């Protein structure tokens, strides 16, 4: 009798554990499929024209996404410019005041803000900036991306600052440093590689955001440097081209996606190489 039960248990064991393997396969398969299509459909369109030419009129082939590449770079740059200082300051606050009620509250707000749908952020910035400025603009798009960036980087900054061992702090205080000098002069520099990692990863994430840009940056078929004019961006063009009927546009959309993903990959690898945590006891 026990043999029968044990046999059944063994079979159950094998079945369920195999199922977990199947689950893992099911998760990895879409990734492989996505990359397969990115490369097979997109690599072919990654030619010089793609990187250097402006979009062609509707229905014509031969255009490129040069201005969208620049536009995304600008959006990310300005978003970082506005957002990173604020985020780091908030992160330091959360790390220092983390145990107080106010600090925990701010942390909750940051986590909640990380979960706000990006389209809602876009609508908020539309109501605030676009309406006030009287038009769509690079600035509005950058602000929308900054609003998404700040809670992300604030949290990672907090975690990195927390990771700095308290011996360093105590060493500073033993030497007579006041609190602010300890934080700014010892703790922050010690945490800086971790903070940089968090910043890079967040910048890569916002580079791919589309929804916040729909009603802020709006789009532009030309080169644009000015802050108060609409600007093109890679994700917006991918969206526009993907839902269109033109094969040439589809190919360009795949190519642009490949570029975006390549960027994200590069940043993630970079982040890992920068942040070799000497403090983690793993």
């Amino acid at each position, binding site marked *: 009798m026990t043999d029968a039960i044990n046999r059944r248990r063994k079979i159950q064991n094998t079945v369920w554990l195999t199922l977990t393997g199947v689950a893992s396969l099911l998760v990895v398969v879409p990734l492989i499929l996505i990359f397969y299509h990115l490369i097979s459909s997109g690599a072919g369109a990654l030619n010089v024209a793609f990187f250097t030419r402006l979009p062609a*009129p509707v229905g014509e082939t031969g255009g490129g996404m040069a201005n969208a590449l620049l536009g995304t770079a*600008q959006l990310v740059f300005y978003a970082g410019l506005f957002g990173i200082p604020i985020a780091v300051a908030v992160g330091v606050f959360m790390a220092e005041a983390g145990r107080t009620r106010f600090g925990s509250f701010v942390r909750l707000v940051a986590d909640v803000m990380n979960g706000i749908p990006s389209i809602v952020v876009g609508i908020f910035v539309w109501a605030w900036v676009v*309406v006030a400025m*009287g038009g769509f603009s690079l600035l509005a798009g950058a602000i929308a991306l900054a609003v998404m960036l700040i809670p992300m980087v604030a949290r990672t900054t907090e975690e990195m600052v927390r990771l700095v061992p308290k011996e360093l702090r105590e060493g500073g205080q033993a030497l007579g440093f006041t609190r602010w000098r300890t934080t700014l002069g010892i703790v922050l520099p010690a945490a800086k590689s971790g903070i940089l990692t968090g910043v890079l990863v967040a910048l890569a994430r916002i580079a791919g955001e589309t929804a916040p840009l729909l009603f802020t940056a709006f789009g532009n078929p030309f080169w644009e440097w000015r802050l*108060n004019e609409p600007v093109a961006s890679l994700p917006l063009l991918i969206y526009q081209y993907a*839902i269109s009927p033109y094969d040439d546009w589809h190919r360009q959309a795949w190519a642009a996606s490949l570029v975006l993903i390549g960027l994200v990959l590069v940043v993630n690898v970079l982040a890992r190489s920068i942040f070799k945590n000497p403090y983690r006891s793993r």
Partner: protein
Amino acid sequence: MKEELRKLAGPAAFVFLLAGCWSSDTPGDAAAGGETAEGAAGQVTLTGAGATFPYPIYSRWFSLYSESNPVRVNYQSIGSGGGIRQMIEGTVDFGATDAPLTDEDLASIPGTLSIPTVLGAVVVTYNLPELTTPLQLDGETTAAIFLGEIANWQDPRIAALNPGVTLPEQDIIPVHRSDGSGTTYVFTDYLTAVSPVFTSRVGRGNAVSWPTGLGARGNEGVTGQVRQTPGSVGYVEQVYARQNDLPMASIRNAAGEFVAPGIEATTAAAVGIEARIPENNDFRLSIVNAGGPGAYPIASWTYLLISPHMEDCARATALLELVEWALMEGEGDAVALGYAPLTMEIRVRAMNALKVVTCGPENRPVIDPAETFGGIEWPSRSFGALFPKDAGGQSG
């Protein structure tokens, strides 16, 4: 690695900041006299938004024009509803719509001119690769399809209109616009004219409540969906169907003949429209359900929305010169794509209507009131040569 990044960051930041702060041509930049300094090398940038119906020709026009003139036009095709809305919000220099402004909308932007630019047609396109000849449909059947009353391609009502054609046994998947669309307006304008059931159940408008089917964004989106979905049927501007080699149904017009979409058929639909334009040049007119010989029943022209007063004279001048070029010399490009040209009389009247536009704080007229207009005529006979495939399908 880190060091290299840091070295790059500085110069990159410097370049961006410098470029971003160097701003000329800011909107609403009203220096004395209403004349603003034009941007680098006299560049004027215009922003426009609206209809997807004319987007192929607008993007072509703006690209051509900027090659030999220092004017850049940033036109975003977000649908007629979007064009009207952005005009009301004042975020663009001009709008574009196929749906005429309602009196309500006009009340928010009083005096806005609706200037026709080209004639186009809304075609019923479908994804049935088995069919070798275009489908024939009439108004009531089309309405029934989009109402969901006809759910299969083998329905007897469709078969009756297409004798001798083997229709596939397949579900019909209608595709409509999910955004505020002038194309929807024109299509529903036609359907409400020919089907009382459609009028009571759906009605006419930019954004109506469709009983069934998929929603897609822009003419581009509907065309894309129809291409992707077997058995689907959608309504798009003619040029989109042509550019993507999609079949177009021949629709039975008010005179009883099945008319295939084409430039001549569109032009035939607009015959006599000049007489209907009132003295005050209010161009908001409908030409659907036309009954003349060879007239395609779902045709319309499309409008540019231009404000009667613009603060920035450089932009106002640039815009109106662009419109003049497009109307007087650009109709050929429209024809090459598949739109039908406006007659010279309409084009001249449109330019004359623009004479009321003023600019700057002293309200000076942009166009000299004494100016006269002339350009290239487009005789309607020669279109067959441009689109030889049409010659076979046309009846009349």
